[in-house]
């Protein structure tokens, strides 16, 4: 990296974390590479003997040990509140035999060869894959470093490596010898990588499984943590945009005469579908944007509204679509059935609305481009910048940042594209910030979904045939460009095609119905959230129709799911399930096996009149396999559950004349502390492979809530949010 470029990076997170140039030029390791990747920068460097003090371009590794003994973990996952980077640090520290206080986290740059998540096949943070993916390679990276350091010590002391051991950042020899990692790293870096890297067994863990303090939180309680929106780059101006209010519309003309008179305004930049203002501060940008006189070509979507979309979706849910799963013979089962039951469940369009609004710092120069941006997809960020600027990808530096909430929003890079499109028209760095109104009306939304379920039932009301038709937009197709030839969106039908219940004669159909008017995207819980809602509501209806207890009924269909059974039984035990409640009160449950974790959730509520209710208790039982950091698991279940509660109660994006109607938190309200019940979390101790936990809670609260409302009121609500149906918490 040329020195001149270095000097422009002086406040970047990367630089801050590096601390000093000598500390990190020691041992650089990439001890594990994704199986799909045959070759890597780090692997090449290792075989060519280029590791070590000369290797300053040392990204492409998970672990570095500095000459000052500091350990830097290069995190392939960005921190956005889920506690992932602390979890990753714990995995490395456990095997490397260092205390967490010796570990510094550095964000990985875009590098598919090194950092692609093999569960998702690309470099991304999302889909509750982070723990599942990093569990093996990050521990292996730590262990590899430890083995090399021990070997280096053994060479120095002329003893067998087996007589030395690592402890708390030092290697101890058989005769009282003692050396810090920093002293050993120079030699260790010259050694060949070990071919065998055994990992600890769970009973050997000292750190994993114990509650650890998050590494990123001290700077988040004193205002020092910098998110993208807080960055200051020398010479930078703030930019903000107003984008055509109808998706697909275009800028026709703009009169900027008044806007240019606003104090602090520098440039007005025209984009295809937006106008940007750059100024010395965000407020001046907003004043100038308001002063613009813009004429839009609103395009083809201008006549669409939500009622049309709802109607089209309900109609679509009766169509045949494509087969996503077929087992046995549904028609025969229907003929043999004593009765059939059908219900349609609808889920609203949702915005992500993290509290950090859309923001991206971009500096485009003739010879390169720097992006400072919190992104879940650094490679995509790099690629879009290369496309917009015409620069080669290796000239695009992505400096990933802490994210102030994403919930899937920063799996997209529309705003990075826009920031680069603005930055290439000016000769200074810009920090693009969207107003909350722009953020909410130009999100990529969780799509509307309609699930039509039909069960063929025997005399006891148990399913002998099951059909699940899922109608909705394809997030997957929008995201990767197309669906496989089967036409099945694997995300849309997840859970439905592999339910935890034993459902003979199962048929799942996917009917793609695009809203067109707005782009759709990933939203916390993704496919499993949508299908779990429909499935867990429907199974609850079947249980009640059969006059069976909802827990007993579920258990009777879960014989092949011991872990799901265990969380459900634990939940029943902890909540006093089965104990009678006064009239007007009820309990509802939901259970799932998603993201590699098993979770069951119960809501207990009390009606206060016809449509008002008070949530009295909210309890989850969780088996997420081996727990890395119990504090983070509990926090994710608590927060994820309440995040889902907020959406289930209140949230719905509505379209009128092709435009999103909700503009800010007054019209897209969020759960407040006064409305948030405490969440009890019970963890099951397990040695199974760790599962994801960031989204599991979110997926269960909706059905548990609706089921509780039925138990308390006798009213079955099949559409979320509840506020649309007239139900409110008090």
């Amino acid at each position, binding site marked *: 990296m040329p020195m001149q470029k270095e000097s422009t990076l002086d406040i970047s997170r990367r630089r801050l974390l590096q601390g000093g140039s000598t500390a990190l030029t020691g041992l650089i390791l990439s001890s594990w590479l994704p199986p799909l990747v045959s070759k890597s920068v780090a692997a090449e460097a290792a075989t060519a003997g280029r590791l070590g003090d000369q290797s300053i371009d040392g990204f492409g590794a998970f672990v570095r040990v500095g000459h000052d003994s500091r350990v830097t973990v290069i995190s392939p996952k960005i921190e956005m509140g889920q506690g992932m980077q602390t979890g990753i640090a714990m995995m490395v520290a456990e095997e490397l035999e260092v205390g967490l206080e010796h570990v510094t986290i550095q964000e990985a740059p875009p590098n598919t060869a090194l950092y692609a998540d093999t569960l998702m096949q690309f470099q991304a943070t999302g889909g509750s894959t982070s723990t599942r993916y990093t569990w093996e390679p990050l521990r292996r990276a730590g262990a590899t470093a430890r083995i090399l350091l021990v070997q280096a010590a053994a060479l120095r002391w002329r003893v067998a490596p087996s007589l030395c051991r690592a402890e708390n950042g030092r290697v101890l020899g058989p005769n009282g010898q003692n050396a810090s990692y920093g002293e050993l790293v120079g030699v260790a870096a010259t050694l060949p990588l070990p071919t065998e890297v055994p990992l600890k067994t769970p009973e050997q863990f000292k750190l994993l499984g114990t509650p650890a*303090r998050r590494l990123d939180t001290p700077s988040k309680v*004193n*205002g020092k943590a910098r998110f993208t929106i807080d960055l200051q780059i020398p010479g930078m101006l703030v930019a903000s945009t107003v984008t055509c209010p109808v998706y697909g519309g275009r800028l026709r003309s703009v009169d900027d005469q008044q806007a240019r008179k606003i104090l602090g305004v520098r440039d007005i930049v025209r984009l295809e579908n937006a106008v940007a203002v750059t100024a010395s501060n965000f407020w001046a940008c*907003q004043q100038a944007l308001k002063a613009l006189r813009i004429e839009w070509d609103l395009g083809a979507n201008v006549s669409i509204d939500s009622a049309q979309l709802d109607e089209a979706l309900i109609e679509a849910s009766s169509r045949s679509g494509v087969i996503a799963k077929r087992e046995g013979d549904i028609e025969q089962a229907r003929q043999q059935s004593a009765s059939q039951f059908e219900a349609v469940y609808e889920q609203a369009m949702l915005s992500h609305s993290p509290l950090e*609004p859309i923001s991206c710092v971009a500096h485009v120069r003739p010879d390169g481009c720097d992006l400072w941006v919190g992104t879940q997809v650094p490679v995509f960020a790099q690629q879009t910048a290369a496309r917009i600027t015409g620069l080669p990808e290796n000239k695009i530096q992505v400096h990933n940042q802490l994210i*102030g909430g994403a919930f899937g929003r920063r799996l997209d890079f529309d705003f990075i594209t826009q920031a680069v499109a603005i930055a290439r028209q000016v000769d200074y760095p810009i920090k693009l910030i969207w107003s909350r109104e722009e953020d909410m009306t130009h999100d990529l939304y969780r799509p509307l979904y309609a699930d039509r379920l039909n069960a063929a039932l025997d005399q006891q009301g148990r399913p002998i045939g099951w059909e699940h038709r899922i109608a909705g937009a394809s997030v997957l197709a929008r995201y990767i460009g197309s669906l496989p030839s089967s036409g099945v969106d694997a995300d849309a039908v997840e859970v439905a095609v592999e339910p935890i219940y034993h459902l003979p004669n199962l048929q799942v159909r996917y009917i793609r119905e695009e809203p067109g008017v707005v782009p759709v995207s990933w939203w916390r819980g993704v496919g499993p959230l949508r299908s779990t809602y429909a499935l867990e509501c429907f199974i609850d209806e079947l249980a009640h129709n059969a006059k069976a207890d909802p827990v007993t009924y579920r258990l009777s269909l879960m014989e092949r799911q011991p872990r799901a059974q265990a969380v459900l039984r634990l939940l029943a035990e902890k909540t006093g399930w089965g104990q009678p409640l006064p009239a007007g009160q009820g309990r509802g449950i939901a259970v799932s096996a998603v993201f590699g974790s098993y979770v069951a959730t119960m809501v207990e509520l009390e009606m206060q009149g016809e449509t008002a209710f008070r949530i009295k208790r909210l309890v989850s039982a969780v088996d997420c396999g081996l727990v890395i950091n119990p504090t983070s698991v509990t926090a994710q279940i608590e927060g994820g559950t309440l995040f889902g509660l907020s959406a289930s109660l209140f949230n719905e994006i509505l379209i009128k004349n092709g435009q999103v109607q909700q503009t800010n938190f007054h019209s897209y309200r969020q759960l*407040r502390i006064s409305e*948030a019940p405490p969440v009890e979390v019970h963890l099951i101790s397990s040695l199974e492979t760790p599962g994801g936990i960031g989204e599991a809670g979110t997926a269960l609260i909706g059905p548990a809530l609706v089921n509780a409302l039925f138990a308390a009121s006798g009213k079955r609500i099949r559409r979320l949010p509840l506020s649309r149906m007239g139900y409110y918490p008090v």
Partner: protein
Amino acid sequence: MQTLMINGQSRQVDVPEDMPLLWVLRDVLDMTGTKYGCGIAQCGVCTVHLDGQPIRSCVIPVAAVAGRQITTIEAIDETAVGQAVQRAWLEHEVVQCGYCQSGQIMAATALLQNNPMPDDQAIDTAMAGNLCRCATYTRIRTAIKSVARS
């Protein structure tokens, strides 16, 4: 030219009178601990203290606070209560993404300075203006109560 008293220091800023305090802090003084979330006093991430009381800096014109005591998250550890709140936030692992937490800590500190033993109702009233999309509410409540007990 406006003269502001921020965290005990006098600061001269040359900005329009109607510029909200938030943007003076963030874009003029580079004090970015105070956050932008909604611009219409709906989310609370911009909370600072004005003469000891919590206000939403996104809707307060700078001229309205000239000469008055403004305290931001950057200096909240200079008060015993502020320090205790920060400590409790870490001890109870309140923080997730952290973006709203400056505002939460400012609101909680003001609450505890005015009412050292707040009950649930008082916590609801004082904190309901501060959104947290990660929904760390359970722990915010626990942390506030732990400070009250100490």
